[in-house]
């Protein structure tokens, strides 16, 4: 059992942070890696990136958006409750290199995934600019953490309630036009990552994205997480989750994420009805 030692609600309760006891994983985890969690006996195996780790305390931190049945179930877990299973660290760690100017772009809960990567890129001596965005001010997460993880933080909201009024890509464009950007890391919803990759392509700036296909085992055993990268099939759980954004077939990924949408919707509605009734 993997006990929750800290819990926070963010973005009006749509995003949850859990710090979980998992000493073996905390000892080994590197930025960019993820875990698979299962709440109880009948639960689904859900992949979530580690937003932080504390090897001394033996804990890992996950930050997730409540989008369906399993994440809604996770949300009901309180401090002192436990996940039945946590498996990891999975996936390849981020390739970290001192390059010069780096721009990290995060949207939605992608910001949580971006946090440890940004921090690590800064630590090894890069000049890191960070651009984070959300639909509206109240949904923005990790602003202060991202500020200290980077040299320069830009914030955007789609509705203009805070920071730049518009998309993260607007601000990214200015950065690219300013020249000298060596690497862009873009993590967020698939349409955002696709937009980032399309924007950097004409500038010929290397662009890394982190993909989130549906997964089961996370060890390369099932092939459910396959994505097309540069015309080749890759398993995101072992070959990724980070890939060269200029080579990823985002359209295919978008479609594949919808594989179970009907089942998921029905299941989530049932769960909410049950939860609200009790």
């Amino acid at each position, binding site marked *: 059992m993997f006990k929750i030692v800290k819990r926070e609600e963010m973005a009006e309760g749509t995003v949850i942070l859990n710090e979980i006891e998992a000493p073996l994983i905390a000892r*080994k985890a590197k930025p960019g890696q993820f875990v698979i969690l*299962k709440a109880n006996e009948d639960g689904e195996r859900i992949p979530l990136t580690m937003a932080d780790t504390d090897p001394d305390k033996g804990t890992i931190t996950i930050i997730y958006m409540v989008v369906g049945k399993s994440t809604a179930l996770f949300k009901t877990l309180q401090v002192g409750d436990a996940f039945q*299973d946590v498996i990891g660290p999975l996936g390849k760690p981020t390739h970290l290199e001192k390059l010069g100017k780096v721009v990290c772009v995060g949207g939605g809960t992608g910001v949580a995934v971006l946090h440890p990567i940004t921090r690590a890129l800064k630590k090894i001596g890069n000049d890191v600019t960070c651009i984070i965005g959300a639909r509206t001010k109240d949904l923005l997460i990790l602003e202060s953490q991202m500020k200290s993880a980077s040299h320069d933080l830009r914030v955007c909201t789609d509705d203009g309630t805070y920071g730049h009024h518009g998309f993260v890509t607007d601000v990214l464009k200015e950065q690219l036009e300013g020249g000298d950007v060596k690497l862009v890391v873009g993590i967020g919803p698939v349409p955002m990552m696709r937009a980032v990759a399309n924007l950097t392509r004409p500038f010929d700036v290397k662009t890394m994205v982190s993909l989130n296909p549906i997964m089961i*085992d996370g*060890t390369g*055993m099932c*092939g459910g997480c396959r994505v*097309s990268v540069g015309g080749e099939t890759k398993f995101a759980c072992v070959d990724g989750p980070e890939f060269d954004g200029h080579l990823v077939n985002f359209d*295919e990924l978008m479609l594949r994420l*919808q594989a179970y949408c009907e089942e998921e919707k029905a299941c989530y509605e049932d769960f909410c009805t049950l939860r609200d009734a009790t």
Partner: protein
Amino acid sequence: MKETAGKKEKASRVAMPEQKPEIRRRNFEEVPLGYTVAMAQEEAARCLQCKKPGCVEGCPVSVDIPGFINLITQGDFTGAIRHVWTKNALPAVCGRVCPQEIQCEGKCIVGKKGEPVAIGNLERFVADWERENGTGALPPQAPSTGKKVAVVGSGPSGLTVAGDLIQKGYDVTVLEAFHKPGGVLVYGIPEFRLPKAIVAQEINFLERQGAKVEVNAVVGRTVSLDELFEDGFEAVYLGVGAGLPRFMNLPGENLIGILSANEYLTRANLMKAYRYPDVDTPIPKGKNVVVLGAGNVAMDSARTAMRLGADSVKIVYRRSRDEMPARAAEIHHAEEEGIEFFLLTNPTQFKGDQKGRLTGMECLKMELGEPDDSGRRRPIAIQGSEFHMDTDLVIVAVGSGANPLLTQSTPDMQLNKWGYIIADPETGKTTKKGVWAGGDIVTGAATVILAMGAGRKAADSIHQYLTWGW
């Protein structure tokens, strides 16, 4: 089968009672129901108690078949199971899943003129009898050696090593990547062929003897092989299986509705998705399901799809019936359940709609040409034989390869050109000191009993090493 041979009229083989096909094709309960005591004794009486038994030669682990069958005729079921256990730690499993027709039963003398003695059914009978009526007493254990051994992977191979070494007095820890132990026995082979309660009981039996089973431990990620030695383990056995799905590499293969058999069966068995939405993991329910391949994995996938409510399920295979690698019983059961066989047929591409969902498959008819390296006649496409098949769910069951997760993180251990671990066939020793390997990760996808046989040899070798040195 009423033929007379020799002096006395031969009794025919006692049929295994089974759920009726039209009922079982829509439920997940076990298909063969097991012999009663009377049936088992009647069948046991058919054994001629040969002096030089062919059956024993046919069994990869040399179970003393006439010996245990004789104890059944005498009504000593406790004695019979103990007799089997000396060679085979998982008879309840092997009785159900061994390809008996090419192993023990294939070499039974009674089978020369009629149907062979039902050795698998009898083995299953004594194991089930023990589970239901036995005392559950633990086997004797040697005094503790104080030495720690790690077993990576909890499939039949790893479980055999763990069982043997715990009885030899070692402190054994089994490390399993999944959240439940059992390997293919829990994530691959379906409930209707091997009830999961049986596997759980075998694991519980090991734990009661003192073996530790740690799930959620991905060796190569959570902990490395070298760290296991740093943690005080003096020997490590790798029984990690052949967990890498093979695809066909055809256009359209990433459409929604095309799954590897590993994914499909893992959802169904390990995650119990056939009970969705009572459990949280979904599984695609196809109407017109196609399974590519004709091994046990393909039969299991096809029969699972039928049980999930498909209108039609087709096995599509590029060779002919004679080359189908599945157990005879599985092919027979699948046919009884209404699975259709499209033999000498090969897909060339998959078709989908705008939402990226599979709608159909283009195929070619094949004919058999000259034998290939494997000795089987090579299928050759027939020009102009293209045809279309409607399907909304394709399960790819065309074999599996070596999963590189662990071996990639262990550069000082030699692999063959396909990525399988090189190990001495007699001892299981790898090229890395203190490390043994066996089962599917050495041989490629094979059988439960071969994986167990390799485990037994390695356990003996590990014992020797920890007593005398490498």
